């Protein structure tokens, strides 16, 4: 099967000298729901920035649906949608304009984009907010606005960087439902998250990254099988995936 994303030996050192990725190899089959987990500063956002063309890699290769990011960047971007970790829209623009303009950058004319944007925003619960400026939205609404913006060109691969950070439980669950509906319709999803319960619920495959290196990569069953049921329990009980995660990245997590 064709791979939605194929990353080989990807390295990235920022101009400041920080080595953020130290040779990451990762592949995501089409139609997959892939969770990339890792503590803060592990390199998740860096990886996504390279895949979406916001950062330049130092070395390695990235292919999106078989298209080399470096050789044909414009073609590779055509089928990728992204929901970034940090808000990056102009808060003085209207919600509908933000989404319709994004379509324009993909070459989709307003006449096509407008009804599509209305439907997307309505599906995401922003139907009442089409004509308000983005600054008048709550944090959760702004997050959903970015999801709509990321989907407006009907990408085959949707990348979400911690989309549920700071989103309340109820909304988080409805976002899960929305994402599951998307995968069912054939969209490949790459998600980074802090909530391991979320990954455990949604993802078919997981990789764990720390300090710029992938330390685990496999199907959810394989990773959960690493769970050591007999291990001495501390006083907090977490989900299975969370316990595997904590065991693996032990020592990397900041201590208070």
């Amino acid at each position, binding site marked *: 099967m064709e791979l939605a994303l194929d990353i080989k030996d990807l390295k990235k050192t*920022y*101009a400041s000298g920080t080595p953020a990725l130290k040779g990451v190899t990762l592949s995501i089959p089409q139609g997959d729901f892939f969770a990339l987990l890792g503590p803060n500063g592990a390199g998740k956002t860096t990886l996504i*920035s390279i895949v*979406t*063309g*916001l*950062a*330049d890699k130092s070395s390695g290769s990235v292919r999106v649906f078989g298209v080399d990011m470096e050789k044909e*960047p*414009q*073609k590779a*971007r*055509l089928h*990728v949608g*992204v929901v*970034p970790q*940090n808000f*990056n*829209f*102009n*808060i*003085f*623009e209207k919600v509908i*304009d*933000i989404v319709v*303009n*994004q379509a*324009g*950058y*993909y*070459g*989709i*004319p307003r006449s096509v984009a407008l009804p599509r944007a209305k439907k997307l925003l309505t599906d995401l619960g922003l139907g009442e907010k089409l004509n308000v400026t983005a600054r008048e939205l709550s944090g959760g609404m702004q997050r959903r606005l970015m999801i709509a*913006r990321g989907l407006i*060109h009907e990408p085959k691969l949707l990348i979400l960087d911690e989309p549920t950070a700071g989103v309340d439980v109820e909304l988080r669950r409805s976002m899960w439902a929305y994402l599951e509906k998307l995968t069912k319709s054939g969209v490949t999803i790459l998600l980074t998250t802090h909530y391991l319960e979320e990954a455990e619920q949604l993802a078919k495959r997981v990789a764990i990254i720390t300090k710029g290196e992938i330390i685990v990569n496999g199907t959810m069953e394989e990773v959960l099988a690493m769970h050591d049921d007999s291990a001495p329990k501390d006083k907090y009980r977490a989900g299975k995936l969370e316990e595997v995660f904590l065991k693996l990245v032990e020592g990397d997590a900041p201590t208070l």
Partner: protein
Amino acid sequence: MTPYQLWTSYYTIIRKDVVRMVRIWPQTFLPSIVTSTLYFLIFGAFLGSRIGEVHGVPYVMFVVPGLVMLAVVTNAYMNTAFVMFQSKFFARNIDEVLVSPTPPWVLVAGFVSGGVLRGVVIGCLVLAVSLFFTHLSIHSLFVIFLFLVLTSLVFSLAGLVNGVFAKSIDGINIVPTFVLQPLVYLGGVFYSTQALPGFWGTVTKFDPIFYLINGFRYGFLGTADVPLYVSTGLLVAFSAAFLLAAWYLIRTGLGLRQ
């Protein structure tokens, strides 16, 4: 992307810029109208009659082209400089374009077209205001339009270059006050170099904006301090130089990626 898709993206960038300009019109269109009204009032109604004629026309008519150019230069410049800077540093919404298949040259073309549009519209507005104070003779509409568009182009490109390199908003705001305004004022807005021999006359001839104002003024009066082909040649040379600079920026990704 197909040509139609490229066009759609280009159109989107311009449309978005126009929506922004209109939304904040008290910041984009009003200031130049207010200042030029004041100038026309002072030099037309208050002082003009005492100064008499320059190049055979009433003084207020003589200053109109220079004051239009002042507005065109600062507005074209500020538009691209500010849009570039704010979408790069404040909202970081330049990412919206960077993640899309829109190539950098379309992004630059869109930003610069927005600046040219702002320059030309402002130029026409200030010209319209001047009609309340003087009768405008028109020698060549073509020359007027050529200088309006090319000057807007040169300073939109300059603003873009500045917006790309600026590290703080001050790096943008100081240019109109400390560079553009002095160049325009010393470029013969208010006087003819024929009346200014010696040192200052020479200084003026090193001021590139002097030639732009002269060419533009030629379009109205049919006379100027320098021949038209000199000012036109210089304007075209400037456009070419800045287009080259913009092309270089595009090749290097405008310093937008990390």
